[in-house]
């Protein structure tokens, strides 16, 4: 793609954002009445839906039950219409399995699993429209869904992707920026303590730049936390008003 520069001389990206700016985030909790917890998030053009069931009985073999904590089971699925070209397999392919494992690792760090031994918590995430940053959108949606279900958590989990172009760290990459081949990483953060739940990168990045990119991603994740915080407060207030508090 000749002529497509990810960062212009004046510092604007392809969609007009600055280097450290996030896309517009809109989120809603409690979208499904049947599930224990559910949430929907839109980050720019990326749309993700998360549904949580639990803590309930272990499904399948009882031998998988852990005696001292709950089993967190995550499944990532992207709809066949989510990408520019129709996807053949919505779930079960390598990328979906890997993302499911990453989500599981992320949420095992945040959910207080020792409060529900020998039970299972299911988190199902579906991407309805993928425009970059799908892992981050899934983590953010799943956080809201787990909060909606009332499962005890240590803290929010907020995620953001970051890349490195022309000596500058860009945050919240869109699909165009992800497909360009520049190094990118995904970071999931617990904002209150600043602890990292998951950091994932499979590109080559010089270690001198790592700290800069990491700091940019952490700052963006804290920005996401601000927004999600507002969404949750609004939802709780509405729910308590409806119950006639």
């Amino acid at each position, binding site marked *: 793609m000749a002529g497509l520069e990810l960062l212009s001389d004046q510092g604007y990206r392809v969609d007009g954002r*600055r280097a450290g700016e*996030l896309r517009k985030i809109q989120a809603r909790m409690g979208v499904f009445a049947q599930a224990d917890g559910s949430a929907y998030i839109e980050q720019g053009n990326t749309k993700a839906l998360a549904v949580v069931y639990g803590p309930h009985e272990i499904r399948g073999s009882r031998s998988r039950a852990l005696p001292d904590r709950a089993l967190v089971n995550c499944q990532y699925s992207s709809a066949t219409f989510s990408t520019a070209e129709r996807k053949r397999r919505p779930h079960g392919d390598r990328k979906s399995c890997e993302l499911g494992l990453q989500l599981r690792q992320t949420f095992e760090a945040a959910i207080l699993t020792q409060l*529900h031994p020998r039970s299972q918590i299911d988190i199902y995430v579906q991407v309805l429209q993928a425009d970059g940053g799908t892992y981050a959108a899934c983590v953010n949606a799943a956080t809201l869904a787990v909060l909606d279900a*009332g499962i005890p*958590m240590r803290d*929010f989990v907020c995620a953001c992707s970051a890349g490195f172009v022309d000596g500058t760290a860009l945050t919240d990459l869109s699909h165009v920026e992800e497909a360009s081949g520049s190094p990118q990483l995904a970071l999931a953060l617990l*904002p209150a303590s600043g602890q990292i739940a998951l950091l994932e990168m499979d590109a080559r990045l010089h270690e001198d730049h790592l700290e800069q990119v990491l700091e940019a991603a952490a*700052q963006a994740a804290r920005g*996401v936390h601000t927004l999600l915080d507002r969404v949750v407060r609004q939802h709780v207030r509405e729910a308590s008003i409806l119950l*006639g508090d």
Partner: protein
Amino acid sequence: MAESVPVTAESLAGSGARAACTVLNQVVLPGEELLLPEQEDADGAGGAGERPLPLNAGVCSRVRVVCGPGLRRSGDRLLVTKCGLLRHKEPSSGSGGGVYWVDSQQKRYVPVKGDHVIGIVTAKSGDIFKVDVGGSEPASLSYLAFEGATKRNRPNVQVGDLIYGQFVVANKDMEPEMVCIDSCGRANGMGVIGQDGLLFKVTLGLIRKLLAPDCEIIQEVGKLYPLEIVFGMNGRIWVKAKTIQQTLILANILEASKMSCSSSRLSRSRMKPSGVLAGVALSCLSALEQYSGQMWLFRGRGAVLQLWARPGLQGRARRLPAEGGEVRGAVGCAAGSLSSSSVSGCRPRKHVA
């Protein structure tokens, strides 16, 4: 479309713990830390008034505070683990700092000792019944835990029966156990729930609201017609009335009561029906759409609501001329939807089959 993200101070949980008493009845989120009251006194300046000199200087005397659902102890602070409103209850006996808990909305039940729940018998194995209470494990119920049950006189409990009982053992490490007798050996309303009736599920917060001592909905509903209601703290309600239609109306009223408006809010709407029940009944009107051509009378606090469902009739309310001093409010509903401009917070709902 792009949005700059200034990090505001009010949402940063890491900016420091707040005192628990300053956030009472406000929204708290996971990750926040709360300080307990007596720590402020110790940290604050040794101010006005005389304070007895502590014998072991440097250690402040702590008042015992009970940590309820949604809060965990982390060091000497309280860590919030669920999102909701922070509540506090003063101690009744005078000693201790009371109870703090987070009032959160939940659908999934976690067994708690002493809770009365409705369970469904799923299996009979030897001397115990396995009862599904909606938690992460089925509870066990011994056949001897019924009033008047002995080894020779077994209770008549079949798979699929509804049981109303309470938990005697309910912690995270063990399988929950329930019984249908109280500590004196009397049934006290517990046991097998009778035939017929309808079991449905609501959120846990709604059950707590309906079981509050000053709940008007239950009092109003009790004046409608003879009925039986059993509330289980696991979110299950069992209702029974004389006919199936009455039972279904009752179920719809209870389900819709999670969106009930107080009388003061109703008076702002143009319909002005009186009574809490009126508002609740209006919000479940679309559930009656299949009973076209029939009429039910609801009495609530002096006003009588006449409800009917007829397809094609637009949702509106009008007062019929009073007969014998009775005020009647009449509301009709179109098949499928209630005009949302009239009553706030009401949505069309499907009836429970």
